[in-house]
């Protein structure tokens, strides 16, 4: 079998002395897909850039060749490389809206590829472009060619990007997290499309992702990268079922598997609800002096309740209204309908008093954005203590140290600033801040989505430990169905602003389930070999 792309014992060091890649070797035969998996900082994106020859000034390379067919890409000039990019190597990046030029129509961008690399002109190029769009599953290709990127959805844009990657009939494709920015169902469609086109054209592909479960589905072989080194390379299902290296084993163990429950107890279903939303509707739009507010509905007539100590999962794609509900319950969005906390009925955000805000805390998705960069960790944690009081007989400083210890951070971190901590550590601080008020419900709004899978597992373990000790209930919002099925007692499914289903975690997706729920469950990549 002929090798299309090969990298042999390749090392890369950046100007600051950071070693991005150390002795990396890989080879992709024609018609095969090699998955590259690694956490942030593992060097997987550096690898893609090295192959594409997009290296920053001062980067030092060592070791063997990067061969495309017979050509060593390292020896080519930038001008020669421009002839190769797009023509012999195609690329698909994570965010389709960033890789398309917003000021050109989709047609202009696709036709440019055909003109440049295939030498097609005029009507010929247009016909070919339309045929390509039909091939990637876009229904009205002529209309799509006339649209600008902002007039197409994320999935449609990524289809166009894939069409232009395949347009020049390249020998090799690089895909860097091509579905990470997309919704679960759209991501699944894009993956299926890629698999189909790949089989049809026999292109060799390098598929980079942080998602081990997903890669094990797409790729024939998987290479696991860790801190710039290849840790393990094997057939995809082998890596997942029988990982040989310690690091891979930990990585595989951290991947959420819906069949492994992490929470054993069940909350008392006869207990009075802790918090309930009753026919909650949230509208967006800012009124101006001369104009009534334009009414965009973020969520419509949502009713749900959380029992004491319960974990209620809320899932849905982006724009489904799951975060809208979370922010309304935290008193950040005005709403219609009512919220009930214990016996109290609250109908306006302004009626959420100190007692409510203390009882209901929220943790956000991006810890970098939710911690004020100008405040030290100590100061961040001291605010809820100042508002709601430290525990009896404990000084402010000791209380902060105790909070940090609770989330397994050293007390000395109180003097540090958020930018001096890693992503996982800042999210722990955000959790500590939420628990400082000793709440009865914590709303977790996608709190692990920006974290690596191993860090995610640690944060989840921390949350479960805190719940066990303090009996806190969680409203756990996520797009990760596998994760939520591991921990939630009940799961609410939201779709286009409405709550379409609310059922026990065990019965989710059963015959009584909503069509959307079943579509969602089918789209989720479950790890190979499970």
């Amino acid at each position, binding site marked *: 079998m002929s090798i299309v792309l090969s990298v042999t014992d390749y090392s890369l060091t950046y100007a600051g002395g950071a070693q991005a890649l150390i002795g990396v070797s890989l080879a992709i035969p024609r018609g095969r897909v090699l998955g590259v998996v690694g956490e942030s900082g593992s060097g997987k994106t550096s690898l893609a850039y090295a192959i594409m020859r997009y290296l920053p000034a001062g980067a030092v390379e060592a070791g063997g060749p990067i061969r495309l067919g017979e050509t060593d890409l390292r020896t080519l000039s930038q001008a020669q490389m421009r002839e190769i990019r797009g023509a012999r190597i195609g690329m698909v990046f994570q965010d389709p809206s960033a890789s398309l030029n917003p000021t050109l129509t989709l047609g202009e961008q696709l036709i440019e590829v055909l003109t440049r690399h295939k030498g097609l002109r005029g009507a010929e190029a247009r016909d070919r472009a339309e045929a390509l769009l039909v091939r990637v599953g876009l229904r009205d290709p002529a209309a799509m060619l006339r649209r600008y990127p902002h007039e197409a959805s994320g999935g449609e844009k990524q289809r166009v990007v894939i069409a232009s990657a395949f347009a020049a009939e390249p020998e090799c494709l690089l895909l860097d997290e091509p579905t990470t920015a997309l919704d679960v169902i759209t991501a699944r469609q894009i993956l299926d499309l890629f698999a189909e086109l790949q089989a049809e054209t026999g292109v060799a592909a390098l598929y980079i992702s942080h998602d081990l479960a997903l890669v094990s589905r797409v790729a024939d072989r998987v290479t696991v990268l860790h801190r710039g080194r290849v840790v393990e390379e094997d057939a995809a299902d082998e890596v997942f079922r029988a990982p040989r290296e310690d690091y891979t084993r930990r990585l595989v163990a951290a991947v959420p598997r819906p069949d492994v429950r992490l929470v054993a107890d069940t909350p008392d279903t006869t207990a009075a609800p802790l918090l309930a939303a009753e026919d909650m509707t949230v509208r967006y739009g800012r*009124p*101006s002096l001369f104009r009534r507010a334009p009414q965009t509905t973020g969520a419509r007539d949502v009713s749900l309740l959380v029992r004491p100590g319960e974990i209620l999962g809320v899932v849905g794609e982006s724009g489904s209204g799951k975060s809208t509900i979370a922010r309304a319950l*935290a*008193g950040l969005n005005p709403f219609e309908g009512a919220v009930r906390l214990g016996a109290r009925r609250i109908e306006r955000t302004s009626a959420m008093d100190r007692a409510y*805000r203390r009882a209901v*805390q929220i943790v956000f998705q991006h810890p970098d954005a*939710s911690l*004020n960069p100008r405040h030290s960790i100590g100061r961040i944690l001291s605010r*809820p203590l100042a*508002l709601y009081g430290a525990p009896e007989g404990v000084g402010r400083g000791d209380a902060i140290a105790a909070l940090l210890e609770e989330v397994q951070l050293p007390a000395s971190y109180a003097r540090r600033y958020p930018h001096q901590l890693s992503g996982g550590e800042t999210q722990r601080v955000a959790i500590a801040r939420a628990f400082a008020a000793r709440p009865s419900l914590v709303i977790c709004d996608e709190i692990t989505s920006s974290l690596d899978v191993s860090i995610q597992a640690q944060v989840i373990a921390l949350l479960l430990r805190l719940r066990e000790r303090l009996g806190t209930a969680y409203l756990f919002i996520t797009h990760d169905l596998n994760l939520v099925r591991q921990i939630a007692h009940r799961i609410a499914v939201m779709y286009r602003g409405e709550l379409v289903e609310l059922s026990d975690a065990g019965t989710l997706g059963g015959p009584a389930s909503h069509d959307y729920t079943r579509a969602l469950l089918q789209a989720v990549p479950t790890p190979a070999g499970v």
Partner: protein
Amino acid sequence: MPDLLRRLLRTPQGAIGLAIILAALVMAIAGTSIAPYSPEQFHPRARFGGPSAAFWLGTDQFGRDLFSRLLAGARATLFYALAATLLGTAAGAVLGTLSAFLGGLVDEVLMRIVDAVMAIPNLLFTLLIVTVLGASGVNALIAIGIAFTPGMARVTRSVALTVRRQDYVAAAIARGESSGYIVLREMLPNVVGPIVVEATIRVAFAVMALATLSFLGLGAQPPSSEWGLMVAEARPYLFRNAWMMIVPGFAIALVAIAFNLFGDGLRDALNPRT
């Protein structure tokens, strides 16, 4: 902070601006004690003198030493300009951040008022305020501060709008912080960078505006040696001794340019990517 200073000094504008400003500050602080004469001492035999060994920059119509008067006037000019800018910046920053935080109708009304005020030419507006308050150095300072407020509020609001969307502001609202705490402690520290740059450039305008007001007789009053007033007093004698006008005029221009350069340098230093 030392890192910022190093980047600032690496830009030529920043280094030159900072050097001139430091020199001017030394003049303002130590001026009267290093001056060779008292700024109000008459030398009747040496009226309308050009630069000489005894009087380095010449003398005025009463034979007062221009160099000594320049040093003494630095304090009035520089400190008043800085104070006026500080006043305008602080008021504008709080107003702009508050407007961005509250949003909705309050924001709309505040910003339309700002628009209306900004439609009046700045100097005219300053003159109006001084006329109402009465002519004096302190009133000129207050007038310039007020005249700066709408512009600063505008700049601050646009920065604060992006800060407003950050989750740490949402987190503060969710835990029940007061609006005052959120505006002053959570948001303001994060909008300070662009404001500092804008404020430094505005000091140059303040120096000019103060000099203008004094020149028109609405700011500092004789026998003060505020630089604008020195220029005004030199006007009738322009053809007998041009040094009387050149010396303070040049000083005003130099300080204004220095603050402009410093502001440019600071902007580059705060944005390493541009």
